[in-house]
């Protein structure tokens, strides 16, 4: 008797939870269908409101979708490739008009693209591109060139180094993360090709965190000897802010050092203005989110799209740091 009472109790509890959440979810469905969506589109993202970039990317994306009469369903695989593959299968099964894909791990998306093609669902890619070999399965790409950003940051570094022997430290993103890998590769390969006079003395992951970056930078300074270090490259502005703090904490003036990064965020832009950060690459999350939908709607309308719509990898230095077109967004 007691068992049954307990079971009903538990059941009703779960039921209440389920109903309330389902109603909230159906609520969001209604609100999006209020925009009288003509097109159903799935956006398979590896991040959402769990990451700062996604937090500013999403509103721009949703706003643009509403403007274009696109009904968006957004998933977040938290950078788990298996989870994204599963999201992809869900999306293909839902038979949307188009899928927007932000690959969690670039090497792993081919089966997803193949499945979409088999189901006649066009796929556009956003934020980080698929492998060259998989391009024929996609209808277009918009976003930053993560490799190119690393390369551009390296170009700034090369210019600053002016051919002098320069020793730098490198702070990478989260180990194994595809953006982290691409930016690092772009930076390292460009340095090797264009200015071999720049030597990377040490590298450690800063995990996209300011505090982790500050600690490892400080440790790397100790490791190689602070006096031997002429510059720092960090894979994003948050981490470069940590690296600059580490320099200051050791009583080293960051001004004469060659420091570059990627982002031009609200954290990085003031550092550029103050001259601590010599150069960064502007990445507009809102551009990224907005153009993901723009490319998608062009494809849906049957217009021809460029194969790659690269976010301008604007190099931001002290001269143009105040320009409105590079106003930091996050």
């Amino acid at each position, binding site marked *: 008797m007691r068992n049954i009472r307990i079971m009903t109790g538990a059941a009703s509890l779960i039921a209440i939870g389920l109903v309330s959440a389902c109603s909230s979810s159906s609520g969001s469905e209604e609100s999006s269908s209020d925009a009288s969506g003509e097109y159903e589109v799935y956006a398979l993202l590896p991040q959402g409101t769990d990451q700062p970039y996604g937090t500013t990317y999403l509103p721009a994306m949703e706003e643009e979708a509403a403007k274009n009469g696109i009904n968006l369903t957004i998933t*977040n695989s938290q950078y788990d490739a298996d989870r994204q593959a599963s999201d992809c299968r869900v999306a293909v099964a839902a038979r949307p008009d188009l899928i927007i894909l932000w690959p969690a791990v670039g090497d792993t998306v081919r089966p997803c693209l193949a499945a979409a093609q088999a189901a006649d669902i066009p796929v556009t890619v956003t934020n980080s591109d698929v492998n060259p070999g998989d391009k024929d399965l996609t209808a277009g790409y918009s976003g930053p060139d993560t490799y190119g950003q690393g390369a551009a940051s390296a170009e700034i570094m090369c210019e600053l180094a002016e051919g002098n022997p320069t020793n730098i430290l490198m702070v990478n993103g989260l180990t194994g993360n595809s953006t982290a890998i691409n930016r690092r590769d772009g930076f390292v390969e460009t340095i090797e090709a264009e200015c071999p006079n720049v030597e990377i003395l040490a590298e450690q992951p800063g995990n996209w965190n300011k505090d982790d970056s500050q600690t490892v930078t400080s440790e790397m300074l100790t490791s190689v000897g602070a006096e031997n270090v002429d510059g720092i490259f960090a894979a994003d502005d948050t981490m470069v802010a940590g690296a600059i703090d580490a320099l200051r904490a050791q009583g080293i003036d960051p001004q004469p050092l060659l420091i570059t990064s990627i982002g031009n965020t609200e954290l990085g832009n003031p550092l550029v203005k103050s001259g601590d950060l010599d150069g960064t690459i502007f990445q507009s999350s809102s551009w990224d989110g907005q153009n993901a939908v723009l490319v998608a709607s062009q494809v849906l309308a049957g217009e021809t799209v460029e194969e790659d719509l690269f976010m301008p990898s604007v190099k931001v230095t002290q001269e143009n740091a105040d320009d409105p077109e590079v106003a930091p967004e996050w």
Partner: protein
Amino acid sequence: MTTSQTMSLGEATTGFSARLRAALGRRTEWRAIILLVLVVVGALIFAPTVFTAYQVTLGFVALIGLIALGLTAVILMGELDLSVASTLAVSGVVMAMVPNIFLGVTLALLTGLVIGAVNAFFVVKVGINSFIATLGMLFALRGLAFVLSDAEPVPLTDIEAGISFGMPLIGPITPRIVLFVLVFIALHVFVTRVRAGREFYAVGGNRQAAYDAGIPVSRRLFTGFMISGFVAALAGVINTLELIAADPTAGSTALLASFAAAIIGGVALTGGRGSIVGTLLGALSLGILGVGLTLAGVQVDIQQIFIGSVLFIAVITDPASLRAAAGSVVTFLQSRKSQTAV
């Protein structure tokens, strides 16, 4: 009564409801069934696509359920294996590093077996609590995956094999689903029909009795951890084939989801209680819930709140937990009584 003595030793199982209760009480899966019914009803109302696209749902269930099945073998013996997610990553990397696909699969599965044996060694021979031993492995294997792969995804050499692996075999059934069903059947048969597997319950339920009855407890523990390692490696192989690349960070969401599936399925962490069917039901409910919420466009954050709440309710509605809490309430009420009654 076959004997002259009339011995009414049995429980009073007269009347339909009493017998029904007895039959229900025998099962350990009722919480999973309730949840499954609720989830199915909810999905029918709010996201019927879950069922029209059943192959997707099945695929998702297979994704979170496969590791949970292997884990159940270990939990039935009252032990834990936290290293499964890292095992998945390492075996995937091992597989992708080998150019020959068959050799790669073999090596990857072997890796899983070896990891299971190492876990069992620490637990059985050294005598470390399995929670801690596998925690160490969780770190070490993740590190190993990074070291082997140079912290980058390792693309499969034979991409075509991978692509064809991900394609449906019969109707909408992909090899992943087939393998999942096979593992389910194999493990279910193993713990219900095979002597060694059935004895897992004895090892988890009353280890001393198992020793006394002459059951080779150490060998059973080795078997259990190796099953868990093998199944995790199989999941790694499937993922790598389907994704045509091995990701050293893989499995980040697998560990917790697997635990949740087993716990919701009524598998007791203290050992000796639960079933493979229960884990399947747990995986089914979580899978349908996950796909349903995704199809309904619910953000991951809210999905997590959901899954966490379900897990929380599942763990505190365990009969033993409810008894303990009821006992506390009774004690509290009575302690008030004993103070007032002077």
